[in-house]
């Protein structure tokens, strides 16, 4: 009798969690997204270093048109790889644990994540348009942090700690505008890898 009630309770708990949160996100997605950002960021760093001598120098007018488009291309590549790895590991995990992927919880999570990200994206395009390149790194960190905290209700709540770290980093980087790329590499590369490893161990 007791055994049955115990199982009932754990069944209730798991159904509530399964149906309201997106739990197929694998820690490995974080690790590989972080690696993409790390490799891409370091490549961009040495590219800027080579072309300009002094990377992300506060005097943004010195940027050349083709350097900007090259950096933009690298950024898109990083985004592509990070997303692909994310989707790949999510599908793998949900197959392994037999979890449905495209649920209401998933859609809610994506919408909540997308709102700050899209606004941030438009903001960044405007910064590019006006030539405020030095503010790009802090802006991406800040909007990404806000997006993670916004999506926290619909997935593992650990994600909000990553969000807070991105926000702190973004705020600090606002005052060191010359070193934006370094902060960006820490925020999107190192933090993602750390977060991914922690989550991977915790929910294995």
């Amino acid at each position: 009798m007791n055994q049955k009630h115990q199982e009932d309770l754990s069944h209730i708990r798991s159904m509530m969690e399964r149906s309201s949160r997106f739990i197929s996100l694998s820690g490995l997605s974080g690790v590989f997204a972080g690696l993409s950002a790390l490799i891409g960021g370091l490549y961009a760093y040495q590219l800027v270093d080579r072309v300009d001598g002094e990377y992300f120098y506060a005097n943004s007018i010195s940027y050349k048109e083709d350097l900007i488009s090259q950096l933009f291309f690298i950024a898109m590549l990083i985004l592509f790889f990070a997303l692909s790895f994310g989707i790949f590991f999510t599908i793998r995990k949900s197959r392994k644990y037999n979890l449905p992927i495209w649920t209401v919880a998933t859609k809610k999570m994506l919408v909540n994540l997308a709102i700050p990200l899209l606004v941030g994206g438009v903001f960044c395009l405007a910064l590019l348009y006006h030539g405020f390149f030095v503010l790009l790194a802090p802006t991406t960190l800040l909007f990404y942090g806000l997006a993670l905290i916004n999506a926290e209700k619909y997935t593992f709540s650990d994600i909000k700690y990553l969000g807070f770290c991105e926000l702190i980093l973004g705020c600090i980087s606002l005052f060191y505008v010359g070193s934006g790329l370094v902060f960006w590499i820490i925020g999107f590369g190192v933090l993602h890898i750390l977060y991914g490893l922690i989550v991977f161990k915790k929910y294995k």
Partner: protein
Amino acid sequence: MGIIDKLNKDFESRVRLGIMSILMVNDWVDFTEMKALLNITDGNLASHSSALEKGDYIEIKKEFVGKKPKTSYRVTNLGRVSFVSHLNSLEKLFKTK
């Protein structure tokens, strides 16, 4: 053994517990998603959900999306109150043991 009597007989089956749990933390949930979450057959879900509807614990909405019929479920106020008290009795059962 007064405590055991308070456990709601209508929530006894695993499937019904599942349906109620899912509806407690979501608004409308449709048939396909409910089926996938609980990992049960069409007939099984249909019979248990109509039993819960008969008890006024859940609400069933049937509509057409294009030409396809779509069935969705939502918990009623009575369902919410009954399920919470069912959970409380389950919990009490463990405390007294």
